[in-house]
């Protein structure tokens, strides 16, 4: 009897804590809605357009237009000291993807400067030379819609070349090991298995 009561009490507490854990995942549906509707300026740089598989050379584009099975987005700010410090590690993630030919064309990686103008993103690019495309959030779409997030914030989306838009990862904070982070993305996205998650 005592044993049963103890286990029951522990389970109740566990469930309460678990529900708060689950609620921390809920914003992912908001993130999906915001990111799906997000309009970004087509990169001026041809190399960036080719990397993303964008045919237009100007105007606006959506994330779903990016030719990829999995899209990794770093939401950063030029003004954020942690993003500045994290920039060299963030660059390593691109090289980690690029060095694995099985993922090079399937996983694409971009950065969006939250609440940053085109000029401010340009200053960040000049300073840290990220090899992946950076976009500005000049319209403050992310800044206004996802105000609760901290920077840097990483989002993983399974897009399967525009046929779906599934946010499988969304967390504030950077990472210390790019290879480890890539392995986690591969695992969480289910991309290695070839099919859907």
């Amino acid at each position, binding site marked *: 009897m*005592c*044993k049963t*009561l*103890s*286990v029951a*009490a*522990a*389970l109740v*507490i*566990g469930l309460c*804590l*678990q529900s708060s*854990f689950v609620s*921390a995942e809920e914003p992912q549906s908001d993130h999906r809605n915001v990111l799906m509707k997000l309009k970004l300026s087509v990169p001026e740089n041809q190399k960036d357009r080719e990397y993303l598989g964008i045919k237009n050379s100007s105007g606006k584009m959506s994330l779903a237009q990016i030719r990829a099975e999995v899209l990794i987005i770093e939401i950063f*700010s*030029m*003004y*954020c*000291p*942690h993003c*500045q*410090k994290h920039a060299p590690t963030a660059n390593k993630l691109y090289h980690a993807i690029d060095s694995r030919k099985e993922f090079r064309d399937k996983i694409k990686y971009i950065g969006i400067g939250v*609440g940053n*103008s085109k*000029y*401010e993103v340009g*200053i*960040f690019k*000049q*300073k840290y030379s990220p090899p992946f495309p950076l976009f500005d959030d000049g319209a403050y779409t992310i800044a206004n819609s996802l105000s609760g997030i*901290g*920077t*840097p*914030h990483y989002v993983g989306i399974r897009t399967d070349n525009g046929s779906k838009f599934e946010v499988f990862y969304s*967390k*504030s*904070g*950077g990472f210390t090991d790019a290879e480890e982070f890539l392995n986690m993305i591969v695992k969480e996205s289910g991309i290695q298995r070839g099919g859907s998650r």
Partner: protein
Amino acid sequence: MKRMFWAGILCTLFLVVGAQNAPAVTEAMKKEIYDIGKLKPIDSELKVRVGEQAPDFTLRSTAGKTVSLSDFREKSNVVISFIPAAWTPICSDQWPGYNVAQDVFRKNNTVVLGISVDNVPTLFAWTTQMDGLWFPVLSDFWPHGAVAKKFGVLRSDGVAERAIFIIDKKGRIRYIGLQDINVRPPLEDIVKELDKLR
């Protein structure tokens, strides 16, 4: 029974907490920032105008030195950046941006002077967690907000406005950007004005 009860709780806690990732650094930093909420955009009256000679001042920096505006006369342009308060949301990500743009300021032969009404130890602790800043951070703590008052950017609650003053090598005010306190001034506005001084 008690032992079993606590063991059950500990196991459950371990499983649940262990399932979550370690808190992100930025999330931890967010906890250090005091959210002051939305404030009245502007709550002071300017006492200086573009074209006038900027009032000189001498303030103590977080490096323990005293810095005067007149130190830069005939040497470089000066961007004076007043911010409302340390450990508040927008202020905490305004000056670190000027770190990234250091080359832009240097190219325009310009120094930045960051001024806040906080005392030196507070500003020291705050800017240290930003990994430091390349420009002097000055305390306008005592007499409280005296320099902010000279420029007419001391608010009724004792903090400064979020304001930018650009002073040329002759000591004249060339630009005043009195910003809504709730909004970070765009970097390009400052750079555009600096380009005019070249």
